[in-house]
């Protein structure tokens, strides 16, 4: 692909600091990870690290991570899309307290708090003697096992990542050309018809950034699964963390990281291809 830009060389020079930044903090580290994944302690070339990743146990961790991350992404979509739609359809000049700014503000406020703290707070809510169970106990209902299972991990992911779904979808819906919707209505399309034929297809780019922004942190997280999964349900993020921080097998840890990067690239590829089919040229 050839891109012709008429920028002057001075303008181009402005990009150098970032290019350097990218070289030092993105490209070199990735190369190092690859280097580590292909060597052993003596520095000799080996593919043993990769073949170990494909042993049953580790594949099942990988599969579990992808499944939970995909589930969380779907939940984020189901919760986030309708909310983004409602916000975008609210009147901007509304004088009541329930206006766009308030809702957007409420979505962003939790993100001002530390990620770890927000996740920790769920411990207190879900514990055996936590808020929910104390309440159930008061009503003489049997206590529930809410913590240290897949459900708790998905809940933690959805809670932490749902703003990353809402915001891009909202941005796209907000910028949508109203005349297209009006045109559809003039031509006799019903509400549902307008939504599925006009609004939703046009909002796909927002959904795609949302999916990417939720899926990637969800599939790599180790904090959420550590705190809410109690190591009972470790994900690939925990597996990598463990290799670097407690087991100090940097080579195996790097090999898992490389595989994970490939999985993510693959997912982005699928999502991107889906976009091209439905609405070519939107992803610039």
């Amino acid at each position, binding site marked *: 692909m050839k891109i012709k830009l008429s920028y002057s060389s001075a303008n181009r020079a402005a990009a150098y600091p970032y290019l350097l930044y990218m070289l*030092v*903090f993105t490209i*070199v*580290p990735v*190369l*190092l990870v690859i*280097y580590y994944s292909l060597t052993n302690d003596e*520095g000799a070339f080996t593919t043993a690290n990769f073949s170990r990743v494909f042993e049953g*146990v*580790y594949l*099942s*961790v990988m599969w579990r991570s992808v499944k939970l991350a995909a589930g969380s992404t779907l939940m984020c979509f189901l919760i986030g899309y309708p909310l983004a739609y409602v916000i975008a359809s609210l009147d901007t000049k509304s004088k009541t307290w329930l206006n766009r700014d308030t809702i957007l503000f409420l979505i962003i406020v939790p993100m001002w708090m530390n990620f770890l703290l927000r996740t920790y707070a769920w411990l207190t809510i879900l*514990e*055996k*003697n936590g808020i929910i169970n104390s309440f159930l106990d008061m009503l003489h209902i049997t206590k529930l*096992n809410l*913590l*240290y299972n897949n459900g708790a991990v998905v809940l933690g992911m959805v809670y932490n990542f749902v703003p990353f779904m809402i915001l891009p979808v909202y941005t796209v819906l907000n910028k949508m050309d109203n005349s297209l919707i009006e045109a559809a209505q003039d031509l006799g399309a019903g509400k549902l018809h307008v939504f599925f034929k006009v609004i939703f297809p046009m909002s796909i780019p927002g959904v795609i950034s949302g999916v990417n922004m939720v899926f990637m942190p969800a599939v790599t997280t180790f904090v959420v699964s550590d705190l809410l*999964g*109690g*190591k*009972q349900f*470790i994900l690939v993020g*925990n*597996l990598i963390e*463990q*290799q*670097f*921080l*407690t*087991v*100090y*097998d940097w080579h195996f840890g790097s090999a898992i990281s490389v595989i994970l990067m490939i999985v993510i690239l693959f997912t982005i590829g699928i999502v991107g291809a889906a976009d091209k089919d439905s609405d070519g040229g939107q992803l610039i």
Partner: protein
Amino acid sequence: MKKLVFAALILLLTACGNAGEPSAATAAKAPEGKLYIYNWGDYIDPELITRFTDETGIKVTYDEFDTNESMYAKLKPGNSNYDLIIPSDYMLEKMQSEGMLLPIDMDNVPNAEYIDRRVEDKYFGTGVTNYSDYAVPYMWGTLGILYNTTMVDETVDSWDILWDEKYADEIYMYDSQRDSLTPALVKLGYSINTTNLDELNAAKDLLIAQKPLVQAYLGDQVKDKMIGGEAALALVFSGDAVFCAAENPDLAFAVPKEGSNVWLDAMAIPVGSLNKENAEKFINFMCDPEVAAQNSEYIGFTTTNAEALKYIPDELKNTTGYIPPDDVFETCEFYRDLKDFLKEYDRAWTELLAR
């Protein structure tokens, strides 16, 4: 290619240094009054750090780790610049054999004479090294079962209870490979330092069988959880048990009769320290009997300072777990550095958690 990788690595490591630690370049001219300490979580009375700073004018930067292994992983690259670390016996042995420790100038640590060498002698009874030149004992204790007497009716005196299906989902194991493997190895009658792959795998299988009964594998969180009555049984260190029992009187501690791990944590100075004299001043300060007593009372772990025991109130001294009785001490085993075989433990542990 290799040179390039190395250059890049060095560049990266310098760039990635934690903000709390000085990077190699800036630390070279660090002013005198600084001390960088790396210790276990919840393992010192913070008031003592303030007092040390007040008395000496030395500014202390204090970081925490949660397992010996994570501490080692951080120090191994050799650019962390900590001045004082407090790891356990086997990790000190490993670090010393790998040349990661500096000898301590004992002339600067006169208070070390108060240290009871009994525990240390058991560890180095065969006269393996000149350990005492490299480390000054800090606290010691055992590994055992902390249980909630309102949920457990029977006498707790065997590791078997951690495999009792009656307590499904009521058990916490420790998120640390060697500590969690210990009950399984002891239950099978093997040494907790086994280097026999079959024995290790048998222990791993036992832990896999136990996994459905385990509510979670936790680090320091286990204390809050047990105090809050979130589970019936937990694998904990004796000092943590003493701390928890003080907060929640329903909790009791037992070291199983089959034997367990006895451990000794000690203060040491890692290679790369730029404030060695300050570290020695701090070690001397912590060995002051009154200071050691206050510290021990605060964190609940047993001081190695014989003189300090005189200042410890009887109530604490008589708490089960504070001072392991002689017969318990005799059945217990130290962890040893497993050298290359540690990899197999890593593997067993990774496979357990991945399951």
